């Protein structure tokens, strides 16, 4: 679809007049400072208020010659033909997991993973490279992160004000541990210690079974049995030993054993 040129907004004219036109006047000063370090939003990049799109940007999002709509369909790519379908199916899109399937459980392992993420991101930064290479590598070189003691405490007190560093570290730590931490939670963290705590904290129990697992209140009592699932007739019959007989007789008669059996 070709872009319809929009008449200038009144708000744009007003903001263009004031010297602080490039900044957002509805944000407070500290938030403006923070926003300045963030990349520009897509809406600003692709804004058509001036009639022409931004051709070059520091992120390099939009490059190449300006868009010229085609008049005929010669040379354009075809979609949806049977050949295209066959072609697409022959090379199915392989979804590659970003986070590992298995979540790390040991708190010391998680702590080491977060510290390793720090080291890797900072190393790449010092080298001048972007942390994008990290996402492709699932197993990096084994670093020796600091263990317990004073060094670990010094580690913890490192302040985290740079957003890009913080989110890069968080992303790398998620990739290593498999534990998901929400962006909102990472946003509110301002020290390395707190970031490690986010990863090592046990999640709030969602149901009674998880709560019992965490508190271990009923685990040591010999006269207690906790079942995480609803007990069915099959469970009751298995407990008294009759289920195997019932199943055998049903199979003998060719009858379905459970409701899900076809």
């Amino acid at each position: 679809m070709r872009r319809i040129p929009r008449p200038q907004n009144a708000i744009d004219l007003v903001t263009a007049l004031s010297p602080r036109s490039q900044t957002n006047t509805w944000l407070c000063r500290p938030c403006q400072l923070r926003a300045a370090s963030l990349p520009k939003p897509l809406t600003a990049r692709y804004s058509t208020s001036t009639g022409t799109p931004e051709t070059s940007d520091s992120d390099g999002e939009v490059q190449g010659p300006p868009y010229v709509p085609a008049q005929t369909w010669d040379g354009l790519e075809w979609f949806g033909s049977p050949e295209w379908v066959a072609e697409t199916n022959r090379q199915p899109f392989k979804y590659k997991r970003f986070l590992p399937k298995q979540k790390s459980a040991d708190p010391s392992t998680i702590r080491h993973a977060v510290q390793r993420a720090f080291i890797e991101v900072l190393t790449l930064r010092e080298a001048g490279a972007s942390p994008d290479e990290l996402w492709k590598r699932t197993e990096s070189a084994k670093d020796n992160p600091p263990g317990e003691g004073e060094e670990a405490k010094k580690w913890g007190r490192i302040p985290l004000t740079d957003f890009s560093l913080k989110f890069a570290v968080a992303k790398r730590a998620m990739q290593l541990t498999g534990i998901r931490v929400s962006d909102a939670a990472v946003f509110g963290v301002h020290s390395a210690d707190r970031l490690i705590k986010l990863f090592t904290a046990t999640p709030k129990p969602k149901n009674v079974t998880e709560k019992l697992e965490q508190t271990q209140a009923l685990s040591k009592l010999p006269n207690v049995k906790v079942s995480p699932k609803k007990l069915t007739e099959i469970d009751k019959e298995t407990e008294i030993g009759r289920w195997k007989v019932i199943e055998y007789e049903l199979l003998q008669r060719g009858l379905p054993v459970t409701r899900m059996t076809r």
Partner: protein
Amino acid sequence: MPLKALEAVSKGQNGVGAFILQCKRIDVHYCDWAGSSKGMNTFITTHLPTFARLNPSIELHISPRPTRHPLLRGHYINGRQKAVCVKNLAPGQILEKAELLKAGSGEKNQRINKPVASLNGSVRGVWSPFHGSRYRL
């Protein structure tokens, strides 16, 4: 033959020798979704461990019963069961119901008119018109 014997079975007197608690099992059913099970969910994590520890002769089975009200079901030695729905009760009230189940005998609720139930007729002997002082006109 001079003497034969009749078959009999001795009658148990619970408490004379050993005491056997009549409640042998309590099923605790909860629901993670229903609001009526809020008290029960708290009861399971707070009061139930103590109750289980103080009553080692009662086996406790805790299992979810999704989308149903929370339930306490007591199983007794005479083979009967007693189910108590504990919907919308506080944990302390649920503990009271559990104690009620524990203290029960399993028999149906019946009114007992006599203060004492005993195998002995009386301590001093049942009155007979043929013994003791005669009434003379």
